[in-house]
Protein backbone atom coordinates (compact mmCIF):
# COMPACT_ATOMS: atom_id res chain seq x y z
CA UNK A 1 0.00 0.00 0.00
CA UNK A 2 1.03 3.60 -0.45
CA UNK A 3 0.80 6.49 1.92
CA UNK A 4 -1.74 8.29 -0.19
CA UNK A 5 -4.01 5.32 0.25
CA UNK A 6 -3.81 5.90 3.94
CA UNK A 7 -4.61 9.52 3.55
CA UNK A 8 -7.87 8.58 1.95
CA UNK A 9 -8.86 7.05 5.23
CA UNK A 10 -10.71 9.07 7.79
CA UNK A 11 -8.60 11.83 9.20
CA UNK A 12 -9.50 14.85 11.29
CA UNK A 13 -6.89 17.03 9.78
CA UNK A 14 -7.69 16.59 6.16
CA UNK A 15 -11.42 16.11 6.10
CA UNK A 16 -12.35 19.76 5.83
CA UNK A 17 -10.19 21.05 3.04
CA UNK A 18 -11.71 18.70 0.49
CA UNK A 19 -8.41 17.41 -0.69
CA UNK A 20 -8.26 13.68 -0.51
CA UNK A 21 -4.47 13.60 -0.64
CA UNK A 22 -3.04 16.94 0.37
CA UNK A 23 0.40 17.79 -0.84
CA UNK A 24 3.11 17.79 1.75
CA UNK A 25 3.34 20.89 3.83
CA UNK A 26 0.04 22.50 2.79
CA UNK A 27 -1.21 22.59 6.34
CA UNK A 28 2.11 23.02 8.00
CA UNK A 29 2.39 19.38 8.88
CA UNK A 30 5.27 17.10 8.29
CA UNK A 31 4.62 14.85 5.35
CA UNK A 32 3.69 11.49 6.70
CA UNK A 33 6.04 9.68 4.38
CA UNK A 34 8.91 11.61 5.81
CA UNK A 35 8.54 11.25 9.56
CA UNK A 36 11.62 11.87 11.56
CA UNK A 37 11.91 8.45 13.10
CA UNK A 38 15.47 7.72 13.96
CA UNK A 39 16.49 11.25 14.74
CA UNK A 40 15.77 10.76 18.37
CA UNK A 41 16.24 7.04 18.68
CA UNK A 42 19.98 7.38 19.08
CA UNK A 43 19.56 7.83 22.83
CA UNK A 44 16.99 5.09 23.17
CA UNK A 45 16.43 4.05 26.74
CA UNK A 46 13.36 2.32 28.05
CA UNK A 47 11.48 4.57 30.48
CA UNK A 48 8.19 2.72 30.74
CA UNK A 49 7.79 -1.01 30.54
CA UNK A 50 4.64 -3.10 30.86
CA UNK A 51 5.18 -6.71 31.86
CA UNK A 52 2.27 -9.06 31.43
CA UNK A 53 -0.06 -6.19 32.26
CA UNK A 54 -3.76 -7.01 32.41
CA UNK A 55 -6.58 -4.71 33.48
CA UNK A 56 -10.11 -5.78 34.36
CA UNK A 57 -13.22 -3.70 34.91
CA UNK A 58 -15.27 -6.00 37.10
CA UNK A 59 -15.21 -9.29 35.20
CA UNK A 60 -14.54 -7.69 31.86
CA UNK A 61 -10.96 -7.81 30.68
CA UNK A 62 -9.89 -4.54 29.11
CA UNK A 63 -6.17 -5.22 28.71
CA UNK A 64 -4.73 -8.65 28.00
CA UNK A 65 -1.17 -9.46 29.12
CA UNK A 66 0.51 -6.50 27.51
CA UNK A 67 4.30 -6.43 27.20
CA UNK A 68 5.80 -3.24 25.86
CA UNK A 69 8.93 -1.13 26.26
CA UNK A 70 8.38 2.57 25.70
CA UNK A 71 11.54 4.57 24.96
CA UNK A 72 12.48 7.80 26.68
CA UNK A 73 12.02 11.16 24.95
CA UNK A 74 10.20 9.82 21.96
CA UNK A 75 6.61 9.92 20.82
CA UNK A 76 4.92 6.56 21.15
CA UNK A 77 1.52 6.35 19.51
CA UNK A 78 -1.10 3.87 20.67
CA UNK A 79 -3.67 3.09 18.02
CA UNK A 80 -6.50 0.65 17.62
CA UNK A 81 -10.25 0.43 17.13
CA UNK A 82 -12.77 1.64 19.74
CA UNK A 83 -12.84 -0.50 22.85
CA UNK A 84 -9.45 -2.09 22.13
CA UNK A 85 -8.08 -1.01 25.49
CA UNK A 86 -5.77 1.75 24.29
CA UNK A 87 -7.14 4.34 26.72
CA UNK A 88 -7.12 1.74 29.49
CA UNK A 89 -3.44 1.13 28.78
CA UNK A 90 -2.70 4.84 28.94
CA UNK A 91 -4.57 5.23 32.22
CA UNK A 92 -2.82 2.25 33.72
CA UNK A 93 0.51 4.10 33.35
CA UNK A 94 -0.37 6.86 35.83
CA UNK A 95 -2.85 4.71 37.72
CA UNK A 96 -5.87 6.76 36.78
CA UNK A 97 -7.71 3.46 36.67
CA UNK A 98 -7.47 3.46 40.45
CA UNK A 99 -10.30 6.00 40.38
CA UNK A 100 -12.63 3.39 38.90
CA UNK A 101 -14.00 1.31 41.77
CA UNK A 102 -14.24 -1.93 39.84
CA UNK A 103 -10.84 -1.73 38.12
CA UNK A 104 -8.28 -4.40 38.89
CA UNK A 105 -4.73 -4.68 37.59
CA UNK A 106 -2.45 -7.71 37.19
CA UNK A 107 1.17 -7.68 36.12
CA UNK A 108 3.71 -4.90 36.29
CA UNK A 109 4.08 -1.41 34.90
CA UNK A 110 7.69 -0.39 35.44
CA UNK A 111 8.48 3.30 35.37
CA UNK A 112 12.16 4.16 35.53
CA UNK A 113 12.94 0.82 37.15
CA UNK A 114 10.07 0.84 39.66
CA UNK A 115 6.86 -1.16 39.41
CA UNK A 116 4.17 1.48 39.95
CA UNK A 117 1.77 -1.18 41.20
CA UNK A 118 4.01 -2.07 44.14
CA UNK A 119 2.30 -1.60 47.49
CA UNK A 120 4.59 1.21 48.52
CA UNK A 121 3.76 3.40 45.53
CA UNK A 122 1.46 6.36 46.16
CA UNK A 123 -0.44 7.11 42.95
CA UNK A 124 -0.49 10.78 43.93
CA UNK A 125 3.33 10.86 43.88
CA UNK A 126 3.39 8.86 40.65
CA UNK A 127 1.05 11.27 38.88
CA UNK A 128 3.36 14.14 39.73
CA UNK A 129 5.95 12.52 37.46
CA UNK A 130 3.45 11.79 34.70
CA UNK A 131 1.36 14.59 33.23
CA UNK A 132 -1.86 13.87 31.39
CA UNK A 133 -3.82 15.57 28.65
CA UNK A 134 -7.36 14.44 28.05
CA UNK A 135 -9.58 13.92 25.04
CA UNK A 136 -11.82 16.89 25.71
CA UNK A 137 -10.07 20.07 26.79
CA UNK A 138 -10.82 20.37 30.49
CA UNK A 139 -9.47 23.64 31.84
CA UNK A 140 -10.57 24.52 35.35
CA UNK A 141 -13.12 27.33 35.66
CA UNK A 142 -10.28 29.55 36.82
CA UNK A 143 -8.04 32.14 35.22
CA UNK A 144 -5.48 31.10 32.61
CA UNK A 145 -2.73 31.85 35.12
CA UNK A 146 -4.34 29.77 37.86
CA UNK A 147 -4.91 26.90 35.45
CA UNK A 148 -1.23 26.65 34.62
CA UNK A 149 -0.14 27.29 38.21
CA UNK A 150 -2.54 24.68 39.57
CA UNK A 151 -0.15 21.73 39.28
CA UNK A 152 2.68 23.79 40.73
CA UNK A 153 0.56 24.67 43.76
CA UNK A 154 -0.75 21.17 44.22
CA UNK A 155 2.76 19.77 44.07
CA UNK A 156 4.27 22.43 46.31
CA UNK A 157 6.42 23.73 43.47
CA UNK A 158 5.08 27.25 43.84
CA UNK A 159 7.94 28.49 46.00
CA UNK A 160 9.98 30.34 43.38
CA UNK A 161 8.63 32.65 40.75
CA UNK A 162 5.31 31.06 39.82
CA UNK A 163 4.65 33.70 37.19
CA UNK A 164 7.85 32.85 35.41
CA UNK A 165 7.05 29.16 35.46
CA UNK A 166 3.57 29.92 34.12
CA UNK A 167 5.07 31.97 31.29
CA UNK A 168 7.58 29.26 30.44
CA UNK A 169 4.92 26.57 30.36
CA UNK A 170 2.63 28.68 28.17
CA UNK A 171 5.51 29.39 25.85
CA UNK A 172 6.43 25.73 25.54
CA UNK A 173 2.78 25.00 24.81
CA UNK A 174 2.89 27.59 22.00
CA UNK A 175 0.13 29.57 23.64
CA UNK A 176 1.92 32.48 25.28
CA UNK A 177 1.66 34.91 22.37
CA UNK A 178 -2.09 34.42 22.15
CA UNK A 179 -2.89 34.81 25.84
CA UNK A 180 -0.13 36.94 27.36
CA UNK A 181 -2.41 39.98 27.61
CA UNK A 182 -5.27 38.10 29.27
CA UNK A 183 -3.68 35.79 31.82
CA UNK A 184 -6.31 36.71 34.39
CA UNK A 185 -9.33 35.96 32.25
CA UNK A 186 -11.03 32.60 32.47
CA UNK A 187 -9.50 29.61 30.72
CA UNK A 188 -13.00 28.79 29.53
CA UNK A 189 -13.06 31.90 27.36
CA UNK A 190 -10.44 30.41 25.03
CA UNK A 191 -11.23 28.49 21.85
CA UNK A 192 -11.18 24.69 21.93
CA UNK A 193 -7.69 24.45 20.47
CA UNK A 194 -6.36 27.10 22.82
CA UNK A 195 -8.00 25.33 25.74
CA UNK A 196 -6.22 22.12 24.80
CA UNK A 197 -2.88 23.90 24.58
CA UNK A 198 -3.69 25.45 27.95
CA UNK A 199 -4.21 21.93 29.29
CA UNK A 200 -0.85 20.92 27.81
CA UNK A 201 0.78 23.95 29.47
CA UNK A 202 -0.88 22.92 32.71
CA UNK A 203 0.47 19.40 32.35
CA UNK A 204 4.05 20.45 31.62
CA UNK A 205 4.27 23.31 34.12
CA UNK A 206 5.31 21.03 37.03
CA UNK A 207 7.90 19.50 34.69
CA UNK A 208 6.92 15.81 34.64
CA UNK A 209 8.98 13.08 32.95
CA UNK A 210 6.17 11.63 30.88
CA UNK A 211 3.17 13.19 29.18
CA UNK A 212 0.21 10.96 28.45
CA UNK A 213 -2.24 12.17 25.85
CA UNK A 214 -5.62 10.58 25.36
CA UNK A 215 -6.78 11.53 21.85
CA UNK A 216 -5.82 15.14 22.51
CA UNK A 217 -6.93 16.46 19.13
CA UNK A 218 -10.09 14.47 18.52
CA UNK A 219 -12.35 17.32 19.64
CA UNK A 220 -10.49 19.98 17.66
CA UNK A 221 -10.71 21.47 14.19
CA UNK A 222 -7.96 20.80 11.58
CA UNK A 223 -5.98 23.99 12.23
CA UNK A 224 -5.98 23.48 15.99
CA UNK A 225 -5.07 19.84 15.44
CA UNK A 226 -2.03 20.72 13.37
CA UNK A 227 -0.83 23.10 16.08
CA UNK A 228 -1.18 20.39 18.69
CA UNK A 229 0.69 17.93 16.47
CA UNK A 230 3.59 20.34 15.94
CA UNK A 231 3.66 20.88 19.65
CA UNK A 232 3.77 17.17 20.45
CA UNK A 233 6.83 16.71 18.25
CA UNK A 234 8.58 19.53 20.06
CA UNK A 235 7.62 18.19 23.46
CA UNK A 236 9.37 14.91 22.66
CA UNK A 237 12.69 16.72 22.83
CA UNK A 238 12.25 16.98 26.57
CA UNK A 239 9.52 14.58 27.52
CA UNK A 240 8.51 11.03 26.88
CA UNK A 241 5.16 11.29 25.13
CA UNK A 242 2.62 8.50 24.93
CA UNK A 243 -0.36 9.42 22.78
CA UNK A 244 -3.53 7.49 22.18
CA UNK A 245 -5.16 8.34 18.88
CA UNK A 246 -7.88 6.93 16.71
CA UNK A 247 -6.40 8.84 13.80
CA UNK A 248 -3.83 6.70 12.02
CA UNK A 249 -2.50 9.59 9.95
CA UNK A 250 -1.80 11.43 13.13
CA UNK A 251 0.11 8.48 14.53
CA UNK A 252 2.09 8.20 11.31
CA UNK A 253 2.87 11.91 11.26
CA UNK A 254 4.00 12.50 14.80
CA UNK A 255 5.18 9.27 16.38
CA UNK A 256 8.48 7.42 16.48
CA UNK A 257 7.00 4.18 17.70
CA UNK A 258 3.51 2.81 17.24
CA UNK A 259 1.68 0.24 19.30
CA UNK A 260 -1.35 -1.40 17.72
CA UNK A 261 -4.02 -2.73 20.05
CA UNK A 262 -6.80 -4.82 18.61
CA UNK A 263 -10.00 -6.21 20.08
CA UNK A 264 -9.83 -7.68 23.55
CA UNK A 265 -7.11 -5.44 24.91
CA UNK A 266 -4.39 -7.31 23.10
CA UNK A 267 -1.20 -5.55 21.98
CA UNK A 268 -0.68 -7.09 18.56
CA UNK A 269 2.31 -5.22 17.27
CA UNK A 270 4.75 -2.63 18.52
CA UNK A 271 7.54 -1.27 16.37
CA UNK A 272 8.98 1.77 14.67
CA UNK A 273 6.15 3.78 13.18
CA UNK A 274 7.60 3.45 9.67
CA UNK A 275 7.65 -0.29 9.96
CA UNK A 276 4.10 -0.49 11.28
CA UNK A 277 2.69 1.62 8.49
CA UNK A 278 4.78 0.27 5.63
CA UNK A 279 5.40 -3.32 6.44
CA UNK A 280 3.61 -4.66 9.49
CA UNK A 281 4.36 -8.20 10.66
CA UNK A 282 0.76 -9.19 11.27
CA UNK A 283 -1.95 -9.41 8.67
CA UNK A 284 -4.48 -8.20 11.21
CA UNK A 285 -2.47 -5.03 11.75
CA UNK A 286 -2.20 -4.50 8.01
CA UNK A 287 -5.94 -5.03 7.67
CA UNK A 288 -6.60 -2.50 10.40
CA UNK A 289 -4.23 0.07 8.98
CA UNK A 290 -5.56 -0.25 5.47
CA UNK A 291 -9.10 0.04 6.76
CA UNK A 292 -10.28 -3.50 6.12
CA UNK A 293 -11.01 -3.90 9.80
CA UNK A 294 -11.96 -1.65 12.69
Amino acid at each position, binding site marked *: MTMSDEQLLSSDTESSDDQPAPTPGTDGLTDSTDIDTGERSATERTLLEARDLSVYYGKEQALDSVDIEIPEKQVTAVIGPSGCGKSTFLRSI*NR*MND*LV*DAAHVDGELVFDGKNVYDDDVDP*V*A*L*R*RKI*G*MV*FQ*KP*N*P*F*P*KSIRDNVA*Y*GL*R*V*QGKDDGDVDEKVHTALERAALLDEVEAQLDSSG*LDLSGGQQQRL*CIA*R*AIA*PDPDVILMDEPASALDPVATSKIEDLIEELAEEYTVVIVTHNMQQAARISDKTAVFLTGGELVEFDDTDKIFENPEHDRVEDYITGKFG
Partner: protein
Amino acid sequence: MSQPDFSHDGIRTARGKAFRYLFMLCALLSILTTVAIILTLLVDAVDFFAEISLVEFLTGTRWSPTNEPVAFGVLPLISGTLVITVGSALVALPIGLLTAIYLSEYASERRRAYLKPALEVLAGVPTVVYGYFALVYVTPALDTFLPLSTFNALSASIMVGIMIIPMVSSISEDAMSAVPDSLRQASYGLGATKFTVSTSVVVPAAVSGIFSSFILALSRAIGETMIVAIAAGQTPRLVDVTDPAGLFLNSIQTMTAAMVQIGTGDIVGQGEAYKSLFAVGLTLFVITFAMNLVSELVASRYREEYR
Protein backbone atom coordinates in the same frame (compact mmCIF):
# COMPACT_ATOMS: atom_id res chain seq x y z
CA MET B 1 -58.97 4.74 -2.66
CA SER B 2 -60.49 7.43 -0.45
CA GLN B 3 -58.31 10.07 1.17
CA PRO B 4 -57.41 9.61 4.83
CA ASP B 5 -59.49 11.69 7.20
CA PHE B 6 -57.39 14.32 8.98
CA SER B 7 -60.24 16.63 9.91
CA HIS B 8 -60.77 18.03 13.43
CA ASP B 9 -62.46 15.88 15.98
CA GLY B 10 -64.65 18.16 18.09
CA ILE B 11 -64.56 16.03 21.22
CA ARG B 12 -60.80 15.59 21.11
CA THR B 13 -60.26 19.31 20.67
CA ALA B 14 -62.63 20.16 23.51
CA ARG B 15 -60.98 17.65 25.81
CA GLY B 16 -57.56 19.08 24.99
CA LYS B 17 -58.76 22.53 25.89
CA ALA B 18 -60.37 21.34 29.10
CA PHE B 19 -57.14 19.74 30.27
CA ARG B 20 -55.19 22.82 29.36
CA TYR B 21 -57.40 24.98 31.59
CA LEU B 22 -57.40 22.45 34.40
CA PHE B 23 -53.60 22.42 34.51
CA MET B 24 -53.46 26.19 34.28
CA LEU B 25 -55.93 26.50 37.13
CA CYS B 26 -53.74 24.34 39.35
CA ALA B 27 -50.70 26.43 38.51
CA LEU B 28 -52.61 29.62 39.22
CA LEU B 29 -53.96 28.30 42.51
CA SER B 30 -50.65 28.45 44.32
CA ILE B 31 -49.86 31.88 42.92
CA LEU B 32 -53.29 33.15 43.96
CA THR B 33 -52.85 31.72 47.45
CA THR B 34 -49.52 33.48 47.83
CA VAL B 35 -50.95 36.76 46.64
CA ALA B 36 -53.94 36.39 48.96
CA ILE B 37 -51.69 35.71 51.95
CA ILE B 38 -49.53 38.73 51.20
CA LEU B 39 -52.61 40.91 50.81
CA THR B 40 -54.10 39.72 54.10
CA LEU B 41 -50.80 40.36 55.84
CA LEU B 42 -50.59 43.81 54.32
CA VAL B 43 -54.14 44.84 55.09
CA ASP B 44 -54.01 43.81 58.74
CA ALA B 45 -50.50 45.14 59.16
CA VAL B 46 -51.56 48.50 57.76
CA ASP B 47 -54.38 48.45 60.29
CA PHE B 48 -51.84 47.81 63.02
CA PHE B 49 -49.51 50.55 61.87
CA ALA B 50 -52.41 53.02 61.99
CA GLU B 51 -52.27 52.64 65.76
CA ILE B 52 -48.61 51.89 66.40
CA SER B 53 -46.15 53.85 64.32
CA LEU B 54 -43.79 51.99 62.03
CA VAL B 55 -40.84 53.71 63.70
CA GLU B 56 -41.96 52.62 67.14
CA PHE B 57 -42.42 49.06 65.85
CA LEU B 58 -39.06 48.84 64.15
CA THR B 59 -36.95 50.62 66.75
CA GLY B 60 -38.70 49.73 69.99
CA THR B 61 -36.60 47.55 72.27
CA ARG B 62 -39.41 46.03 74.31
CA TRP B 63 -42.00 43.49 73.15
CA SER B 64 -44.96 43.08 75.45
CA PRO B 65 -48.19 42.79 73.48
CA THR B 66 -50.46 41.70 76.34
CA ASN B 67 -48.90 42.61 79.67
CA GLU B 68 -49.11 46.17 80.88
CA PRO B 69 -47.41 48.36 80.00
CA VAL B 70 -47.85 47.10 76.42
CA ALA B 71 -45.04 47.73 73.98
CA PHE B 72 -44.62 46.69 70.38
CA GLY B 73 -40.91 46.93 69.66
CA VAL B 74 -40.01 44.12 67.28
CA LEU B 75 -36.22 44.29 67.83
CA PRO B 76 -36.15 41.73 70.66
CA LEU B 77 -38.00 39.27 68.42
CA ILE B 78 -35.70 39.92 65.48
CA SER B 79 -32.69 39.44 67.69
CA GLY B 80 -34.18 36.21 69.03
CA THR B 81 -34.61 34.94 65.48
CA LEU B 82 -31.09 36.09 64.71
CA VAL B 83 -29.66 34.13 67.62
CA ILE B 84 -31.41 30.95 66.49
CA THR B 85 -30.38 31.52 62.88
CA VAL B 86 -26.73 32.15 63.70
CA GLY B 87 -26.63 29.24 66.13
CA SER B 88 -28.20 26.82 63.71
CA ALA B 89 -25.97 28.08 60.89
CA LEU B 90 -22.91 27.33 63.01
CA VAL B 91 -24.16 23.77 63.34
CA ALA B 92 -25.63 23.14 59.91
CA LEU B 93 -23.39 24.91 57.40
CA PRO B 94 -20.07 23.22 58.25
CA ILE B 95 -21.59 19.82 58.98
CA GLY B 96 -23.86 20.00 55.94
CA LEU B 97 -21.04 21.06 53.63
CA LEU B 98 -18.62 18.42 54.90
CA THR B 99 -21.36 15.81 54.61
CA ALA B 100 -21.94 16.88 51.02
CA ILE B 101 -18.22 16.62 50.24
CA TYR B 102 -18.14 13.17 51.79
CA LEU B 103 -21.19 11.99 49.85
CA SER B 104 -20.08 13.49 46.55
CA GLU B 105 -16.33 12.79 46.63
CA TYR B 106 -15.45 10.17 49.21
CA ALA B 107 -18.36 7.77 49.65
CA SER B 108 -18.51 4.75 47.38
CA GLU B 109 -21.47 4.36 45.09
CA ARG B 110 -22.99 1.79 47.46
CA ARG B 111 -22.55 3.79 50.60
CA ARG B 112 -24.02 6.88 49.03
CA ALA B 113 -27.05 4.88 47.94
CA TYR B 114 -27.76 4.21 51.65
CA LEU B 115 -26.64 7.48 53.18
CA LYS B 116 -28.37 10.02 51.00
CA PRO B 117 -31.91 8.69 51.51
CA ALA B 118 -31.14 8.23 55.22
CA LEU B 119 -30.18 11.89 55.49
CA GLU B 120 -33.27 12.93 53.64
CA VAL B 121 -35.38 11.03 56.19
CA LEU B 122 -33.97 13.50 58.73
CA ALA B 123 -35.67 16.24 56.75
CA GLY B 124 -38.95 14.37 57.00
CA VAL B 125 -39.09 14.24 60.81
CA PRO B 126 -41.93 16.48 62.04
CA THR B 127 -40.40 19.55 63.66
CA VAL B 128 -42.51 19.10 66.79
CA VAL B 129 -40.50 15.93 67.42
CA TYR B 130 -37.26 17.90 67.15
CA GLY B 131 -38.71 20.44 69.54
CA TYR B 132 -39.50 17.93 72.25
CA PHE B 133 -36.20 16.18 71.67
CA ALA B 134 -34.44 19.47 72.33
CA LEU B 135 -36.49 20.12 75.45
CA VAL B 136 -36.43 16.62 76.92
CA TYR B 137 -32.96 15.34 75.93
CA VAL B 138 -30.64 18.04 74.59
CA THR B 139 -31.26 20.63 77.29
CA PRO B 140 -30.82 18.22 80.23
CA ALA B 141 -27.68 16.80 78.61
CA LEU B 142 -26.15 20.24 78.10
CA ASP B 143 -27.34 21.31 81.54
CA THR B 144 -24.89 18.90 83.14
CA PHE B 145 -22.00 21.21 82.24
CA LEU B 146 -23.61 24.52 81.24
CA PRO B 147 -25.72 26.90 83.35
CA LEU B 148 -28.79 26.47 81.16
CA SER B 149 -32.35 27.63 81.65
CA THR B 150 -35.05 25.06 81.01
CA PHE B 151 -35.93 26.99 77.89
CA ASN B 152 -32.87 28.24 76.08
CA ALA B 153 -31.66 29.35 72.68
CA LEU B 154 -28.75 26.91 72.64
CA SER B 155 -30.53 23.59 72.43
CA ALA B 156 -33.18 25.07 70.15
CA SER B 157 -30.59 26.37 67.71
CA ILE B 158 -28.67 23.08 67.78
CA MET B 159 -31.88 21.27 66.96
CA VAL B 160 -32.85 23.70 64.21
CA GLY B 161 -29.31 23.24 62.89
CA ILE B 162 -29.72 19.48 62.79
CA MET B 163 -33.05 19.87 61.10
CA ILE B 164 -31.56 21.91 58.23
CA ILE B 165 -28.40 19.80 57.73
CA PRO B 166 -30.10 17.62 55.09
CA MET B 167 -31.12 20.73 53.20
CA VAL B 168 -27.52 21.96 53.05
CA SER B 169 -25.98 18.57 52.35
CA SER B 170 -28.52 17.43 49.79
CA ILE B 171 -28.54 20.57 47.66
CA SER B 172 -24.77 21.04 47.97
CA GLU B 173 -24.19 17.41 47.04
CA ASP B 174 -26.35 17.82 43.95
CA ALA B 175 -24.27 20.84 42.96
CA MET B 176 -20.99 18.98 43.53
CA SER B 177 -22.13 15.89 41.67
CA ALA B 178 -22.95 18.13 38.73
CA VAL B 179 -19.32 19.24 38.49
CA PRO B 180 -18.01 17.42 35.42
CA ASP B 181 -15.78 14.46 36.13
CA SER B 182 -13.29 15.78 33.58
CA LEU B 183 -12.30 18.50 36.07
CA ARG B 184 -11.63 15.93 38.78
CA GLN B 185 -9.59 13.87 36.33
CA ALA B 186 -7.54 16.92 35.40
CA SER B 187 -6.79 17.55 39.03
CA TYR B 188 -5.97 13.93 39.88
CA GLY B 189 -3.80 13.80 36.77
CA LEU B 190 -1.71 16.63 38.17
CA GLY B 191 -1.02 14.67 41.32
CA ALA B 192 -3.70 16.13 43.55
CA THR B 193 -5.00 14.23 46.56
CA LYS B 194 -8.69 13.60 46.99
CA PHE B 195 -8.79 16.38 49.56
CA THR B 196 -7.20 18.85 47.15
CA VAL B 197 -9.50 17.79 44.34
CA SER B 198 -12.51 18.34 46.60
CA THR B 199 -11.44 21.69 48.02
CA SER B 200 -9.68 23.30 45.08
CA VAL B 201 -11.81 22.09 42.19
CA VAL B 202 -15.15 20.62 43.20
CA VAL B 203 -16.23 23.08 45.91
CA PRO B 204 -15.26 26.22 43.93
CA ALA B 205 -16.99 24.89 40.83
CA ALA B 206 -20.14 24.17 42.83
CA VAL B 207 -20.07 27.37 44.85
CA SER B 208 -23.28 28.85 43.52
CA GLY B 209 -25.24 25.71 44.40
CA ILE B 210 -23.61 25.53 47.80
CA PHE B 211 -24.47 29.14 48.46
CA SER B 212 -28.07 28.55 47.44
CA SER B 213 -28.28 25.65 49.86
CA PHE B 214 -27.00 27.91 52.65
CA ILE B 215 -29.57 30.60 51.96
CA LEU B 216 -32.44 28.13 51.66
CA ALA B 217 -31.41 26.48 54.90
CA LEU B 218 -31.13 29.81 56.70
CA SER B 219 -34.52 30.91 55.41
CA ARG B 220 -35.86 27.68 56.80
CA ALA B 221 -34.18 28.37 60.15
CA ILE B 222 -35.62 31.89 60.26
CA GLY B 223 -39.11 30.60 59.60
CA GLU B 224 -38.81 27.57 61.90
CA THR B 225 -41.56 27.72 64.51
CA MET B 226 -42.23 24.49 66.39
CA ILE B 227 -38.73 23.82 67.69
CA VAL B 228 -38.21 27.35 68.97
CA ALA B 229 -41.71 27.64 70.40
CA ILE B 230 -41.16 24.47 72.41
CA ALA B 231 -37.49 24.65 73.37
CA ALA B 232 -36.40 28.28 73.24
CA GLY B 233 -39.07 29.75 75.44
CA GLN B 234 -41.13 32.91 75.30
CA THR B 235 -38.89 35.63 76.66
CA PRO B 236 -38.41 38.53 74.26
CA ARG B 237 -34.87 39.64 74.86
CA LEU B 238 -32.71 42.08 72.96
CA VAL B 239 -29.29 40.90 71.82
CA ASP B 240 -26.69 41.95 74.33
CA VAL B 241 -23.52 41.97 72.29
CA THR B 242 -21.42 42.17 75.43
CA ASP B 243 -22.80 38.86 76.65
CA PRO B 244 -23.46 36.56 73.68
CA ALA B 245 -23.10 33.43 75.80
CA GLY B 246 -25.81 34.59 78.16
CA LEU B 247 -28.11 34.97 75.20
CA PHE B 248 -27.69 31.36 74.14
CA LEU B 249 -27.99 30.01 77.67
CA ASN B 250 -31.26 31.75 78.45
CA SER B 251 -34.77 31.78 77.13
CA ILE B 252 -35.50 33.97 74.13
CA GLN B 253 -38.42 34.54 71.81
CA THR B 254 -38.29 34.48 68.04
CA MET B 255 -40.68 36.23 65.69
CA THR B 256 -42.37 32.93 64.91
CA ALA B 257 -42.72 31.97 68.56
CA ALA B 258 -44.23 35.39 69.32
CA MET B 259 -46.76 34.83 66.56
CA VAL B 260 -47.67 31.45 67.99
CA GLN B 261 -48.07 32.98 71.41
CA ILE B 262 -50.35 35.70 70.12
CA GLY B 263 -52.26 33.35 67.86
CA THR B 264 -52.92 30.75 70.53
CA GLY B 265 -53.28 33.05 73.52
CA ASP B 266 -56.48 34.32 75.11
CA ILE B 267 -56.50 37.51 73.13
CA VAL B 268 -60.04 38.56 72.47
CA GLY B 269 -61.28 40.70 69.64
CA GLN B 270 -59.37 42.74 67.15
CA GLY B 271 -57.05 44.71 69.44
CA GLU B 272 -53.53 45.83 68.82
CA ALA B 273 -52.08 42.64 70.25
CA TYR B 274 -54.01 40.55 67.73
CA LYS B 275 -53.07 42.80 64.83
CA SER B 276 -49.42 42.80 65.83
CA LEU B 277 -49.36 39.18 64.68
CA PHE B 278 -49.69 40.38 61.11
CA ALA B 279 -47.07 43.07 61.54
CA VAL B 280 -44.57 40.48 62.80
CA GLY B 281 -45.64 38.11 60.02
CA LEU B 282 -45.03 40.78 57.43
CA THR B 283 -41.60 41.52 58.91
CA LEU B 284 -40.74 37.83 58.71
CA PHE B 285 -41.95 37.65 55.15
CA VAL B 286 -39.88 40.67 54.12
CA ILE B 287 -36.75 39.18 55.67
CA THR B 288 -37.05 35.76 54.03
CA PHE B 289 -38.09 37.34 50.75
CA ALA B 290 -35.00 39.55 50.82
CA MET B 291 -32.83 36.53 51.56
CA ASN B 292 -34.22 34.64 48.60
CA LEU B 293 -33.56 37.65 46.40
CA VAL B 294 -29.97 37.88 47.62
CA SER B 295 -29.60 34.15 47.01
CA GLU B 296 -30.82 34.52 43.43
CA LEU B 297 -28.51 37.45 42.79
CA VAL B 298 -25.41 35.91 44.28
CA ALA B 299 -26.05 32.51 42.74
CA SER B 300 -26.40 33.93 39.26
CA ARG B 301 -23.35 36.10 39.70
CA TYR B 302 -21.13 33.28 40.91
CA ARG B 303 -22.56 30.59 38.68
CA GLU B 304 -19.53 28.82 37.30
CA GLU B 305 -19.87 27.79 33.72
CA TYR B 306 -18.32 24.51 32.91
CA ARG B 307 -18.62 22.46 29.83
